[in-house]
């Protein structure tokens, strides 16, 4: 009895140390830490937006339009005299709702499709893979624009359209990982104990390709942010009156020559968010490899 208790204790300690190992690797990764810091900052802004902003981001002040950065308006004001610093903080919200949801949708659908294609093989897989390659040849922004023009634009349709556009891309990555896995002997062993294709797909293979799907998801999230910002800039993404960065850039880019602050800070915010997400993606890839 005591021996068993000791053994149990030892095995729990081992399990703890395994989890600890991952954490240690994660905490040593500067890439990951910097990425998490940037992403975390914007998430805090998105969550508590108006409370963090020093001024009302929607209040116009016609006496102080297009004011340059100053002690009161750190980032200056826009054409309506609204405080840009406050608007940049609040503007994180919509993009941080739409882009992650779209990526999540694309990852879930893409992983399912990739698993199915990797295991089915044969003619179906050949056909689907060619279709995916053909889709990749199309300029995705144009495809998304056409789709949004057809179904009408709203946060929901943006999520759906970007999710569907990402699905084949993620499916392709997952499929190639599944092909590698399905050659390994543990899949043969599962067949030898009578496991069906679904069990092999979800119980045996999925956990082993999940890290790849997660890394792919973070990489895609970076693209999605850029994608949403582009669509908003073109008027097909997030809609006014949101303080979204893409909309702000679209409204002010004609002024960039004399009133640079109306564009620069929103652009920098977008860029920093994309960079932060990409750092997290790189860091996670490193942690999963360790």
């Amino acid at each position, binding site marked *: 009895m005591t021996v*068993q208790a000791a*053994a*149990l204790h*030892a*095995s*729990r300690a*081992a*399990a703890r140390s*395994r989890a600890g190992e991952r954490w*240690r690797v994660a905490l040593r990764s500067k890439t990951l830490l910097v990425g998490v810091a940037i992403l975390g900052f914007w998430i805090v802004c998105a969550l508590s937006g108006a409370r963090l902003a020093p001024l009302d981001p929607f209040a116009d002040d016609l006496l102080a339009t297009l004011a340059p950065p100053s002690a009161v308006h750190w980032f200056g004001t826009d054409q309506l005299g609204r405080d840009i610093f406050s608007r940049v903080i609040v503007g994180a919200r919509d993009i941080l709702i739409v882009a992650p949801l779209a990526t999540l949708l694309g990852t879930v659908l893409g992983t399912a499709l990739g698993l199915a294609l990797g295991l089915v093989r044969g003619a179906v897989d050949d056909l689907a893979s060619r279709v995916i390659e053909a889709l990749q040849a199309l300029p995705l922004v144009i495809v998304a624009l056409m789709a949004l023009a057809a179904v009408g634009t709203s946060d929901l349709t943006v999520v759906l359209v970007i999710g569907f556009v990402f699905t084949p891309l993620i499916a392709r990555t997952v499929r190639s990982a599944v092909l590698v896995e399905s050659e*390994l*002997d*543990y899949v*043969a*062993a*599962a*067949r*030898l*104990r*009578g*496991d069906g294709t679904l069990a092999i797909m979800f*119980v*045996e293979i999925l*956990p*082993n390709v999940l890290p790849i799907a997660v890394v792919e998801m973070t990489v895609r999230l970076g693209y999605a942010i850029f994608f949403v910002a582009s669509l908003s800039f073109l008027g097909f993404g997030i809609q006014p009156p949101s303080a979204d960065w893409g909309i702000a850039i679209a409204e002010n880019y004609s002024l960039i020559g004399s009133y640079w602050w109306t564009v620069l800070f929103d652009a920098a915010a977008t860029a920093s968010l994309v960079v932060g997400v990409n750092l997290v993606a790189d860091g996670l890839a490193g942690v999963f490899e360790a």
Partner: protein
Amino acid sequence: MSEAVANPTRDGDGGRGPAIDALRIEHLEVSYRVGRHERKVVSDVSLAIRRGESYGLVGESGCGKSTVAFAAVRYLARNGRVSGGRIWVDGRDLWSLPGRQLRGLRTRSVAMVYQDPGRALNPSMRIGTQMAEVFEVAEGLKRRAALERAAHMLSRVQIASPDRVLRNYPHELSGGMQQRVVIAMALSMSPELLILDEPTTGLDATVEAEVLDLIAQLRAELGNSILFISHNLPVVARMCDRVGVLYAGELVEEGPAAEVFGDPRHPYTVGLLRCMPSYGMHKNMGRLETIPGFLPAPGTITGRCVYADRCANATERCRVEAPPPVDLGGRTTRCFYPERAPELPRQDLAAPPRGAAHASALNGRAVKPNDGPLLSTRRLSKTYRITGRPLRAVHEVTLDLWPGETLGLVGESGSGKSSLAKLLLGLSSPDAGSEVELLGEALPASADDRTLEQLKALQMVFQNPGSALNRSQTVRRLLARSLRLVRLVGAAREARLEELAASVRLTPEHLDEKPRRLSGGLKQRVGIARAFAGGPRVVVCDEPTSALDVSVQAAILNLLVDLQAQEQVGYIFISHDLNVVHYVSDRIAVLYLGRLMETGPADQVFSGPHHPYTEALLSANPSLGDEGVRRIHLSGELPNALNLPTGCVFHTRCPRKLGSVCEREEPPLAEVGPGHAIRCHIPADLLGRAPAARLASGTAARRRGTAARAAAGPHRSAQ
């Protein structure tokens, strides 16, 4: 080699006389930085290789063999560093050489050949271009002259058509040919020291024998020194004048090869030699010895003997004091009690009792001797289509497997062993007209169509335990999923799982580990437990020990033999190591290009008469104590399976080809003795038999086994 940089003048060649050793290592210590820790992986290793001498470094994986070799060319991994000691190559202090001279040394004085020739060659360059580069860079030759030199080097390594090979890309050559090319490149600058790191490990026994003979012959011609690194003791015994045995980063024993292997004076060497199945050893003679315990992690043991925890001779002194190397006259051992090593206590080696009918401990069902065979195949064939052309991987194989019996499958890679295993298991489907019966019932071709009973009855132990276990599942979950075959749930399943784990000697804490935390031997135990979860009648073992070290191999073979005796399962046992096959098998089937060339009782296949192919395989098989035996060479390469030879498929390589009859007619599988059949035109009484010298070395093993057998009490006699 291709990284070599021009350095036309021989640097600093002071008076390097014959007295200077080709390689001299003194008190070498190497550490690797892992995370924030320094791990000492090699400690206090001293050795010297004289000019023209060949020195073997042996030891199990993780003992530091390759690290020593890399240190000897100053090419350690980025996180490794020499933390103590000195190395002289050809009389020059390696670690004080400036970069330019180091490059010169690497270009001309030392050359290295690695385990995997496929990775040592650049896949996108023709052989000629890669080889010529060496001469262009080192000697400033023009391309045409360099190619001529390359062709000359290829003919030295006995490549018959060098001009054709020079135009080939690496992937167009077989593994053996690739290794010859690598050796030719290594020798092209006539290096003083040639380092061979497991040069034949990935090759078939027949090819291995050829490459080893080639190395020996080149050494006789060129007179260079060799550092030969291998885990394979018989190979080292054959190739080397002196050997060093490494254990946990320490050189525990060193001396002339014949003395170290013939009269070992360190308990580890003794254990290592005892746990190899020797030529002619059979499971009925007794169990294999094992080395208890596990290899310690590098650098964890200091201030005491590294082997004390696993040593039956260890005393209190060994646990508090590290033994220094003891000079025994031309040889050294790191043991306080070298005189006691030969009397290292033997383990209880009684063969497990193999009763005719007794209750199976694991399944609680009475095992009755079966009337018919467990598994039988009739004219089993598999033809793949490669761009429309037929590739006959398995051709009309007819076999029976009886209860409690092991059928060994041997043959070179490409002979169809694994294809045959896949067919039996239903992982690929046979051609029309093939029949497979399990327990007297026809077996559906695909595993997906088999009943639960059939799946339970026919299981597999895989070659590579790393890929055979799902890395995202704990051992407990892995085994639980297999126990669903017997439809157990809840507490009953839990109890059965622990029983199963105990039967393969896994402890409870192993159950909650994921496979990557387990050693290779433990992983293979999990793989065996999984195969036995449903109470199988037939288990296909595909090279179950080839990825394991010898001491671990012995434990796994013992386990398989014990389980067989308990459960009366039949094994189909695939291995390239003929001593292992002979140890576990009751009958042996020899495959060549998917055809059965010979089948018969294990002893008869080994003693003869044998098929010329079997004879060549046996002759190529390295065993300790047969260094003087003449080897039979198979000429040429395994024929392309897409374009098989006419008549007897073996005639293109057969050393005893009769004449045109062999090219015209395929010989039948003819009976030469009870249950022993051979596919050859040569009459049985003219076929080869095992040479007397080999039989004698086998008898020694037999004597040892018989003693154990007498102690074993009642047992079934060898069939």
